[in-house]
């Protein structure tokens, strides 16, 4: 469906809504707004707006609805699948100025924030007040709104769940420009369809999230990390079900291989405390006393040693833990610094990870392309990166397309899903369509039609 181009009257009206300082038009729009972090798809909006209130967002949306102008919402632009790229031009609506933490409610254990609040700022505020906002996606400069829109997961998912499990309510601007609240500060809710949950993970296609109410937990006062070297990746991954079966509750179980650690060392200019083993598990425990933590990590240590670990290394101070997690946090950037790449964010049942990783190794050998993976061994969500290195772009693309096809087919066979936490955006559309099949895709399209009959909100995404 062709969309009308914005004219001078539109620009003048929108300028009146946000003020001259907060609008960029045409060629003056920074290139940054044409892509997300991975940058595979590029498209410029006709206008970029930075409203500072939900009411202004509603007015913008109402105007766009009347005129049939496409609107794409953008948080920090740290997505990896093109979700925030304005494929059909129109309005790019940045939530950068919706960045206020409005309330920390210690009676209800909730926080109310605007959707453009950056995760690391929010975590700092809550931690200072003795609370934990449990979702912990690796990209700390992402916004809470972006996290909700993609149902971001992160490191602590194994113990605390994902973003969805911590969102209690939200204020949303619908494609028609109406401003509504979904859910609220309630611990239970059986009141009709959960539009709240429909909105979570909808990647800005059903509404514009302007405020979010999230759950807070008492912050565990102690955190401890184990770095567990293994003689092979198979043994490392094989230990994960044993740890889970032992009913220990680590916050995080990550796996990583030696060469990714070496890349991170090079990228950060820092030395990792252990790097002679081919593969590692990284376990993090939290608790409210040192004794509680010690009991947990010793039990986990015994499980790992029994499962073939070379040793179990204990990072029991802030400095020791920072050294490890800084490196873990830099893996993606470190690989990006080495080569162009694209990624797969498949999630499989936890006990299928080993087989899936093994399969990536087979593909690596078969296609002669470097494939690196690391990720959340504890929850079955893997980030597999296919690197270009010295290959010519079209050769790499061709191989990558085939590899991705094969990976998604295998993921599906293992009972997995296309995306664990990064979302679908543009780049995973065809895989989602194939994976869900006609019936389910049609249902999703019909839902979209109900919310957004003119198909102006983030068009061209998901399916």
């Amino acid at each position, binding site marked *: 469906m062709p969309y009308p181009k914005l004219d001078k009257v539109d620009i003048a009206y929108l300028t009146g809504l946000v003020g001259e300082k907060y609008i960029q038009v045409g060629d003056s729009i920074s290139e940054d707004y044409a892509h997300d972090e991975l940058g595979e798809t590029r498209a410029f909006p006709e206008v970029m707006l930075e409203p500072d209130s939900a009411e202004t967002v509603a007015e913008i949306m109402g105007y766009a609805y009347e005129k049939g102008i496409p609107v794409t919402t953008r948080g920090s632009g740290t997505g990896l699948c093109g979700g925030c790229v304005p494929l059909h031009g129109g309005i790019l609506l940045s939530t950068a100025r919706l960045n206020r933490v409005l309330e920390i409610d210690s009676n209800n254990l909730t926080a109310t924030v605007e959707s453009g609040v950056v995760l690391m700022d929010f975590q700092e505020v809550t931690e200072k007040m003795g609370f934990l906002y449990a979702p912990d996606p690796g990209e700390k400069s992402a916004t809470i709104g972006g996290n909700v829109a993609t149902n971001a997961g992160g490191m602590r998912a194994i113990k605390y769940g994902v973003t969805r499990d911590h969102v209690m309510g939200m204020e949303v601007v619908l494609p028609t420009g109406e401003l509504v609240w979904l859910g609220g500060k309630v611990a239970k809710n059986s009141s009709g369809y959960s539009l709240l949950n429909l909105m979570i993970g909808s990647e800005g296609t059903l509404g514009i999230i302007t405020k979010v109410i999230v759950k807070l937990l008492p912050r565990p006062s102690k955190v401890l990390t184990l*770095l567990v070297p293994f003689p092979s990746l198979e043994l490392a991954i094989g230990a994960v079900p044993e740890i889970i079966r032992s009913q220990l509750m680590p916050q995080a179980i990550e796996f990583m291989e030696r060469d990714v650690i070496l890349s991170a060392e090079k990228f950060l*200019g820092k030395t990792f405390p*252990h790097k002679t083993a081919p593969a590692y598990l990284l376990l993090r425990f939290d608790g409210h006393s040192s004794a509680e933590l010690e009991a947990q*990590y010793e039990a986990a*240590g015994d499980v790992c040693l029994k499962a073939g670990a070379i040793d*179990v*290394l*204990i990072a029991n*101070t802030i400095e020791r833990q920072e050294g490890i997690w800084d490196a873990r946090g830099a893996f993606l950037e470190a690989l990006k610094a080495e080569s162009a790449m694209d990624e797969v964010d498949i999630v499989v049942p936890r006990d299928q990870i080993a087989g899936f990783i093994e399969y990536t190794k087979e593909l690596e050998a078969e296609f002669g392309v470097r494939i690196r993976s690391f990720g959340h061994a504890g929850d079955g969500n893997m980030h597999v990166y296919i690197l270009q290195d010295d290959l010519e772009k079209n050769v790499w693309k061709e191989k990558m397309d085939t590899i991705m096809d094969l990976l998604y087919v295998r993921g599906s066979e293992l009972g997995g899903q296309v995306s664990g936490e990064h979302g679908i955006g543009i780049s995973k559309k065809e895989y989602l369509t194939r994976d869900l099949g006609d019936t389910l895709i049609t249902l999703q399209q019909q839902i979209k039609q109900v919310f957004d009959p003119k198909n102006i909100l983030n068009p061209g995404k998901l399916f």
Partner: protein
Amino acid sequence: MHFIVCIKQVPEGTEVEIDEEKGILKREGVDSKLNVYDAYALEAAVALKETYGGTVTVLSMGPLQAQDVIKEAYTLGADDGYLLSDRKFAGADTLATSYALSEAIRRLPPADVIFCGMQTTDGDTAQVGPGIAELLELPHASYVSKISGMEDGCIFVEADMGDGIEELRIGLPCLLTVTKDLNQPRLPSYKLKKATQNRKVNVWDSKALEGADPSHFGLDGSPTQVERIFPPPKAHSKELWQGSPDALSQKFYAKLKELKYL
């Protein structure tokens, strides 16, 4: 080879809190840990042991709970540990601390190299290491940032003098205080923790140092009188960075990224 490493238990956390009224450091309710710089000293000793053979002994002074850092040193590769613990040692300034530790070292098997962290994170004086060396009349180097090796009864090191690097050949036995540039300390090993759980910590009271001059112990032996401890006034932060263009540009990039300008 016998390596002795002096270690100290310090409060956990990156900032030391001060009780202004009482003029002391707040230690209660705060977890403790091995002084960060001592981890580099211990790593250096264990790495030399792995290359040249021998044993590593750790030595500390403090209350009985400081046995924990000696136990932790066992999980980092130390073979033996001694804790000086006695009320008579309490209240020691850097001179009295150096004296007690040096007297303990005299009573241990002779050391080839004695290692200390360049300073502690709670005292920040950087005086105890050189103090021990002076009392034992040993050659010593501070701020050692590289150890090249040992040969013919000498150790070859580089010391970071702030405005330059000094290359030194030092005859054994000697004492070295080390910086964080020296190495990347290993993490405590759970396997070693299990293997050493019954290994005892040798606790020495003042009687164990018989022959030493007790008037040099603890508060009595401390010429330094602390009049007042107070937190410095908080100023708006200003950072001065020094370093090579490469390192500075990296740092600048990281800072911009941290502040989300990039």
